[in-house]
């Protein structure tokens, strides 16, 4: 039992045991052994990464080539101090402050069919968190064709339709998709923090379930 004193940082061992105490011991261990890649660090990926860091997933790979822009702040897990920074660096800094006991790797490449296995090789679970539907399809196809990966993807989370319409479905043997499956980002239905956040939480929850060997969506 550790007691936090105001203004005094707990040491690493104390902090780690406090974090572990939040979980049943077996669950903490399984999550700590987990390795998850997040492809795209926008509204979905930045929020998924934060949730996975908070629950103590042991190793995260953060993949994005973009920098933080003002238009990102309506839904993505960045603030004004991050403007102009690489998203990988801005997010890694935040994750280190939230949970310093996990490992975070970064990759600043644009994902292509050719480099997909080089980038994701060590990660059995990949979150597809891109914006562009062609890139979503490219990543999912390349991962399913070239490797034995579990993919948790997203499709349809723009606008302000009911949050209850966002679901998690297992569509293929190794492919789960979260979203309402129909609402693209376009004029009148932009991407907004609440529904994007709901969808990100669906993806993070499916990753959590897979790490605990639960395959049902």
């Amino acid at each position, binding site marked *: 039992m550790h007691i936090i004193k105001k203004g005094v940082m707990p040491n690493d061992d104390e902090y780690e045991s406090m974090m572990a105490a939040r979980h049943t011991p077996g669950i903490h261990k399984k999550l700590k052994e987990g390795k998850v890649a997040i492809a*795209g660090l*926008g*509204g*979905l*990926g930045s929020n998924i990464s934060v949730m996975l860091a908070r629950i103590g997933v042991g190793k995260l790979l953060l993949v994005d080539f973009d920098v933080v822009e003002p238009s990102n702040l309506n839904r993505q897990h960045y603030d004004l101090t991050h403007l102009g920074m690489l998203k990988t660096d801005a997010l890694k800094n935040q994750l280190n402050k939230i949970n310093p006991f996990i490992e975070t790797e970064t990759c600043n490449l644009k994902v292509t069919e050719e480099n997909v296995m080089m980038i994701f090789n060590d990660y059995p679970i990949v979150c597809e*968190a*891109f*914006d*562009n*539907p*062609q890139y*979503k*399809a490219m990543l*999912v*196809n390349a991962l*399913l*064709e070239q490797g034995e990966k579990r993919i948790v*993807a*997203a*499709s*349809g*989370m*723009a606008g302000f339709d009911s949050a209850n319409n966002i679901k998690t479905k297992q*569509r*293929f*043997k190794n*492919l789960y*998709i979260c*979203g309402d*499956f*129909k*609402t*693209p*980002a*376009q004029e009148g239905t932009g*991407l907004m923090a609440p529904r*994007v956040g709901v969808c990100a939480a669906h993806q993070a929850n499916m990753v959590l379930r897979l790490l605990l060997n639960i395959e049902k969506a």
Partner: protein
Amino acid sequence: MIVNGKEIVLQKEISIMDFLKKQGYDTTKVAVEKNGDIVSRKKFETEILLDIDKIEIVCFVGGG
């Protein structure tokens, strides 16, 4: 043939590419599983569908 859980009568053999186009899919945004296995996008033109097949088609919309 079963497509996304629904039965469709397939009059004659058809390539996956032609089937997708006929159904109105944008083939750059899809992934297809046939009888439980992913179909490489490079094989959409040559892979032929039969009435006994079971396929799942996923089509992505933008946003993230």
